[in-house]
């Protein structure tokens, strides 16, 4: 139903940032609500079969969303998102950190920036996630993507690129 809606997912290793762009077939007010209202967020935030359970949410600068991803067997993975800036229907930023059930964060977290824009009834959301705290993600992003290593990495990339078309597409964007 949404094949014509843009979805772009890029890992910019040098900038240690994941960029995600997605279009939605709805006006900006509705999309904004979907990202900023607890009752709507919980309907889509957790990829099925997981469920999103928001315990606390006050969408204001300095406020937070404390929520869990609940697995089908009832295991809860908690996270805190603290809102650092809000420009209504345009942009908001937050600090994301995994936490325990008592809301003690596991630092360092990651910095998220979400931008909203609308054209002809289609709303585009640009999300950037800097320095994702998830251990593996950090290592992923760290992995040499620093300057100076690019040559060796390029050889490796070329090799891997031959292995599958899909890989080629992804590596070319980095």
């Amino acid at each position, binding site marked *: *139903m*949404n094949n014509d*809606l843009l*979805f772009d*997912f890029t*890992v910019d290793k040098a900038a240690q940032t*994941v960029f*995600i762009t*997605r279009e*939605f*077939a*709805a006006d900006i007010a*509705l*999309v904004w*609500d*979907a990202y900023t209202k607890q009752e*709507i967020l919980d*309907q*889509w*935030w*957790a*990829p*099925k079969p997981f469920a999103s359970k928001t315990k606390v949410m006050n969408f204001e600068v300095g406020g937070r969303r404390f929520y869990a991803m609940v697995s089908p067997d009832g295991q809860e993975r908690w996270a805190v998102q603290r809102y650092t800036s809000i420009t209504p229907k345009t942009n908001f930023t937050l600090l994301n950190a995994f936490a325990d059930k008592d809301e003690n964060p596991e630092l360092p977290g990651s910095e998220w920036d979400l931008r909203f824009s609308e054209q002809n009834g289609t709303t585009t959301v640009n999300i950037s996630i800097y320095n994702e705290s998830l*251990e*593996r*993600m950090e*290592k*992923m992003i*760290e*992995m*040499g993507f*620093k300057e100076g*290593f690019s*040559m*060796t*990495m390029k*050889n*490796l990339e070329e*090799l*891997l690129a031959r*292995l*599958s078309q*899909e*890989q080629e597409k*992804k590596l070319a964007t980095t």
Partner: protein
Amino acid sequence: MRRDIFQAIADPTRRAIIGLIALQAMTPNALAEHFDTSRQAVSKHIKILTECELIKQEQQGREIYYSLELEKMKEIDRWLEQFRTMWETRFNQLDEVLSTLKNQKK
């Protein structure tokens, strides 16, 4: 000690070793020539890479050759792919939510 591929690639020398043996199987001596560090340091990295099952060794005559476990390298990509898939699923769910909300408004 438990090791995984993400540990293997967290170090620049190890990434360089991976890059070299990705092109062709190499002996420990040939590998060491590419680095300013001591042979010992290089062997240590090779040991970690072996423990991560990222490289395998083969005896050819009197020489040992190291080569890359390509399947293992693909794990990195698969992991990223999972992250991407999570967002994709999430957004598809949002499409449905938005569609429902729009209909309610009408």
